[in-house]
């Protein structure tokens, strides 16, 4: 029961974070619920993989991004909006903020303790560790969500196209399905 509660709470906050960060980039209003759902599913999956299955943050982020990518393929078609409009804001809550922060913090502490060999090498190690995790996770997120586009090119490239029954030529005749 506790697990379910934690997953739901995690997804809930991720949904708010996704929609909020999405709002900065001026998404269409119809996309907001979709962004929320994707962000919640992705983040909850990553949380489950990391906390219950013991998978590392980069692989877990990759799996979550993959899920978000596939779901945006389904939702994008329904909402008629490009996949990137849905999945970019949904990925944002998974940006490893704490690692990014610790990168900056260790860099400052490294510079402050440059004369002390033991302390400076400790902060250098922390700097490297946090920087590598940050960069890897961001790369895994972007690539994971993009893979579905490569797999389903045809579908991914025509998200904003009208359904065939609505397509009318300018002169009123229904158009044949030309590419």
């Amino acid at each position, binding site marked *: 029961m506790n697990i379910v509660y934690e997953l739901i709470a995690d997804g809930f906050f*991720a949904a708010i974070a996704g929609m909020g960060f999405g*709002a*900065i*980039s001026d998404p269409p209003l119809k996309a907001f619920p979709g962004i929320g759902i994707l962000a919640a599913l992705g983040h909850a999956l990553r949380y489950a993989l990391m906390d219950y299955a013991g998978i590392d943050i980069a692989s877990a982020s990759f799996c979550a991004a993959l899920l978000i990518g596939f779901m945006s393929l389904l939702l994008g078609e329904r909402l008629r909006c490009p996949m*990137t409009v849905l999945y*970019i804001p949904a990925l944002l809550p998974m940006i490893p903020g704490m690692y990014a922060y610790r990168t900056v913090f260790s860099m400052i502490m490294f510079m402050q303790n440059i004369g002390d060999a033991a302390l400076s090498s400790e902060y250098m190690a922390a700097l490297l560790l946090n920087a590598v995790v940050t960069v890897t996770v961001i790369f895994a997120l972007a*690539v994971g969500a993009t893979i579905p586009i490569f797999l389903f090119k045809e579908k991914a490239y025509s998200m904003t196209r009208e359904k065939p029954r609505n397509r009318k030529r300018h002169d009123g005749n229904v158009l044949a399905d030309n590419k």
Partner: protein
Amino acid sequence: MKTEEQLQETLDFIGEYAGQLLGSGVHTSRVVRNTKRIGRSQDINVHITTFQRTAILTVSDPETHRTLTEVIDIPQLPISFELNSNLSALSWRAADRHMPLCDIREEYRRLVSRPKINPLFVMLMASLANASFCRLFGGDLCAVCIVFSSTLVGFSLKQELQKMGLNHFIVFILSAFMASLCASSALVFNADAEVALATSVLFLIPGVPLINGVIDIVEGHILLGLSRIINALLLVVCLAIGLSATLLLVKNSLL
């Protein structure tokens, strides 16, 4: 068959359309596909080469093999997913319905002049987002409230400075400093100061250009992808500078 003027007119419109897309944060392969599709609706071929600040556009009439080329400047616009979505849909409508150029242009003008989301709403949403981010990183209730209010301060400062037309690097440094300085009040309230400080500046992360950059690179538009990532990284560096200023002030209480 197109006359010289018709070809020029089409080129001008496609140039404006492509510039608008590239300026408002659409990844490269989509811009290329959309412009080609608009060209197809007018029965001409379009080829486009894109850079960060300019793009080169060539249109040719397949019947007469007449070619026109133009270099367009890419305007620096705020990121807009709505335009991304609507202008893509417009390109499909144009191609599917064989819309005449004047109709496409009219609809384009209508879509571009649509009002943006209310800035106050955006500010509130961004603050809520940052506060939930703080919760996701394990911050306690007090830290969540502090992050919410410091994001409000930081975000409104960013909006005001941007309105004044200040250089965006400086805007990022100042807003990051302001937001993290407010968040450092967590030290006084005995809340999770580390989490509060770390999350207070995250609303400034340029996530869209970062992810667009990676998408461009994996899709083969490596040069433009790298330019996007470098651009985003410069902003991240500015964010880090602002945060560092606060950290230098309070680091002794954090250790």
